[in-house]
């Protein structure tokens, strides 16, 4: 844990925002994240520190108080804490039934919002993003063009796009150009 440090933190694509009449794209605030891999017993054990149940079905998410758990695989979750600093969710004691790795700085996120959000993403993401196929609170590890992303629909017209930090300029520019076509 970092205590009052003068060391400057520079996040990728900080302060980025573009918007038109149907969609806005902006960089999400820094968040802490864990890549959680666990056996089913491990998941139960980890949940205790989380105060809410991990989703158990494909593409499901669960959240409470700014914390989100995204189901990425039968033994894999991405946990995002929008409220707390780095590695706040990493348990202090090792546990033999799960692996919790801090990836707060590995990932960054863009928030794509507005009635043209799905169309913007579908310029380069082949997933069916209709509300029927990809309802609110659904997530998916997928691609945006040539970048791997984790897509999380937080509201009807709002998506969180998580990507690795070095892909941020590519994802940013791709979303920006795609937004021009989002009214169609």
């Amino acid at each position, binding site marked *: 844990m970092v205590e009052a*440090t003068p060391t400057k933190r520079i996040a990728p694509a900080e302060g980025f925002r573009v918007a038109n009449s149907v969609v806005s794209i902006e960089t999400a605030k820094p968040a802490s994240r864990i890549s959680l*891999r666990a056996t089913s017993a491990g998941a139960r054990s980890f949940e205790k520190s989380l105060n809410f149940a991990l989703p158990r079905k494909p593409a499901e998410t669960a959240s409470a108080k700014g914390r989100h758990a995204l189901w990425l695989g039968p033994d894999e979750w991405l946990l995002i804490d929008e409220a707390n600093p*780095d590695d706040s969710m990493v348990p202090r004691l*090792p546990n*033999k039934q799960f*692996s919790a790795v801090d990836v707060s700085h590995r990932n960054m996120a863009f928030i794509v919002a507005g009635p043209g959000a799905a169309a913007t993403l579908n310029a380069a993401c082949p997933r069916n993003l209709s509300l029927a196929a990809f309802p609110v609170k659904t997530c998916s590890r997928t691609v945006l063009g040539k970048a791997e992303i984790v897509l999380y629909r937080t509201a009807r017209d709002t998506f969180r796009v998580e990507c690795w*930090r070095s892909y941020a300029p590519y994802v940013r520019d791709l979303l920006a150009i795609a937004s021009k076509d989002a009214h169609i």
Partner: protein
Amino acid sequence: MTPSSKQPYRAKSHGALNHARTVRFTFDGKPYEGLEGDTLASALLANGVHLMGRSFKYHRPRGVMSAGVEEPSALIGISRDKSNSGARVQPNVRASVQEIYDGMNAVSQNRFPSLNFDLGAVNSLLAPFFAAGFYYKTFMWPRKAWDKVYEPFIRRAAGLGESPTETDPDRYANRFEHCDVLIIGGGAAGLMAAKTAAAKKQRIILCDENPSLGGWLLADSDVTIDGKSGTQWVKDTVAELQANENVRLLTRTTGFGYFQQNMVGLVERVTDHLAQPDMDLPRERMWQVRADKVVIAQGAIERHLVFADNDRPGIVLAGAAQKWLNQFGVTVGNNVGVFTACDTAYAAAFDLYEAGTHIAVIVDQRATVDQALLEQANELGIRVMPNAGVVGVTGKLRINGIKVKTASGSEETIEVDALITSAGWTPSLHLYSQSRGKPIWDEASQRFLPGQSPQACVSIGACNGTNDLATTFAEAAKATGGRAPKLEIENDVSLAGGTIGMASESAETGKAFVDFQNDVTAKDIKLAVREGMHSIEHVKRYTTNGMATDQGKLSNMHGLSIAAKMLDKPVPEVGLTTFRAPYTPTTFGSFVAHARGTLFDPSRKTPIHEWAQENGAEFEPVSLWQRAWYFPRPGEDMHEAVDRECRTVRTSAGVFDASTLGKIEVVGPDAAAFMNIMYTNGWDKLKPGRAKYGIMCREDGFIYDDGVVGKLSDTRFHVTTTTGGAPRVLNHMEDYLQTEFPDMQVWLTSTTEQWATIAVQGPKAREIIQPLVTGADISAEKFPHMSVVECQVCGVPARLFRISFTGELGFEINVPADYGRAVWEAIWERAEPAGACAYGTETMHVLRAEKGYIIVGQDTDGTVTPHDAGLSWAVAKSKPDFVGKRGLQRPDLTASGRRQLVGLKTSDPKKVVQEGAQIVADPEQAIPMKMIGFVTSSYWSGTLERSIAMAVLEDGFARMGETLYIPMEDEVIEVEVEGTVFYDPSGEKING
């Protein structure tokens, strides 16, 4: 300039265009006027211009034949730039498809100096040399003439039109879309299918390649549906669909490709018809649609008749003439002849008559003609000649007469200024065939029809061989789960009938074109068969019939029939070529879409990238990463900069951005066991806080990757991989974990980007970083070479390694990536006054080569084992198993004569050999010499003041001290074989 004429062939009473909305454009520099909504073809025809191009091989004058995408002849160059800069130039645009806009510049192709007088037409005189298969015959001899004469000639003759010379400035968009029903084709069938599906609240996409929906209904002036005209029915239906939020209507959108699992590619032309498009609009938009069900309603394409000189300007398809008249208000001539083998051409003729055009004659190939049609013609005073044929025409740049062979066998010449023809309608099987459906021959109607596609699609209407509107509507409704609508349809003309093959014996002697775009005549097909081509696949390739960009939309059936008749075989036995995407020519831009310029590939940059940029670094790409290559000071070239950086690291210290190194966190109670399986060396004895160099093999025993691994605790390893290898190493590990060792309790997480990694290397490394480190003792005694500790650097959590890829005292500091730049700067603030430098990948390469450290992928190439690389010490002998263990025991991997990694020193120390250069034992031997190895790494070493190199060499370990040779183009370089460690072989410095 003002237009030279006022559209003399415009029929005021006909068509849907607004006569007040005029559009000005030029064709070959000459100004013309057309109407908004005109295609280039209809606008030129309105001005009496039929001659629009020259043919590919013989440079024959050609007019426009069709009113659709099947057009083989009127291929035009369009320049969209006001400045004519060459960027927005598109060749081979079909005049029948391109809509005109104000200021459009169109040019004809394949002619010099002009369309009317073309020197290339001399090719026509050389026709005997261009017969079918001429590529295979004429140019085989003499051999020498190939390079100088034939190839340049063929290359010049190949292809039509001029390619753009500048980068395309337009933007192209892409969209992935899903729907319940995708309907391709917005004619009567497609509209009815959409109407039915819409009533069932399904998500529908309906696309049509034309600017307006309605298909042939828009060209039919007679048909009524429940008392409404065809056009009114279209208007009402489209309005109904437009109002439905579940329906997406896409016009100017071609379904060009049918791929796996109902993925269909559509290209929408967004701005090509606009004079001043909004700069925010893409030129084209690719739709990649995944549909639960695809309804193919592509319609049918009218065939031409095959007779001598059937390509002269003024000869057009009957349906096209009808479309130009009823949709665009244009007549193809004032005195028109008709040559037909089916009924639909009569409707075209009667419509033209009504518009005031004189119909000189209807020549009907059939002996028996429908009585009602004969009576109607008689009433209008039109002469009909049944059982007759057109055997030739007069006029070259435009026909002025036709020669008719009458039923009695006599010949008669009739004056005309245009001829409309129809050989009947070919169901369009393109997309059905692309869906991997097999066309089925229908003997009765002499057509191929769609059968059952292996994908979830259905063909309806004319493309399904359905000849009338009532059945089409019933099929369409059924296709989308509805009932046949009860509609009263009157004055519908059946598409039935027609002929395939040669229309008259004139085709035996004259130039009777089967394929217009590739200039293939009936005689060419016959020649191919005579010369032994008995399958249509062979005939096609020998003659190039159907191989032009129109994919034989007009020619395939004629070619097939001619070949079948000659072979005396039924048509299906001669075959039908498979249709492939794209249905019509599709721009590269639409496929590329966003993936150009900086969006071609992600360009990955480290958190320290900008510092390097600000400090003058040159960069090199390593996989997708941009890495600082070297940091030249003013006046330094690369060689000088690298020399200085190397010396500075060895004498003082250097700071290096190693953030791109792959990192994988291996966590779990079985972490050590997993490491034992994945790496060749043993991990049991490694204590937490210690690090180790590991080699990873594939099952075959060849080196796959390497890197230093730190053990953080009994259950946690920090694994590093090569920069380029990170993704595949993770996949390789995950693959084994999931498929071979699923019982192991261990998990893998990529942490490459979680950490910024800063290497500080050199004698002063410790002194530079010491004050920044808290929570760890990094003295030589407490923190020896190959150690790792979790501590703080600059107050942020860090994983600090003591490791070296330079041979010097070295540390690698990992901090969370957001802090990378700040920590780098803090280190730099101490490093610079200490006389240290920032160094890049080139210096890193030289320093590691001086120590004989390999780079996977440079000194190994997928055929090098750890033993070959001199790394036997890193292969555990006692472990029961590891990936590659059995591979390494294969006889060929243990046999003598394997290429082994050695060091090379040139006899002349100033000579730096080339990487990749081949090595021989005896440079005097005859060519081809026996090559016994090659150079993998080669550098100038400033520290050693000489060149150094590494190479893989047959039995290299046994050749120490041998003199070998590297023959180059202009010299032979002498080298001596030695070990790979050139610098500090005892390792004193690294342990300092």
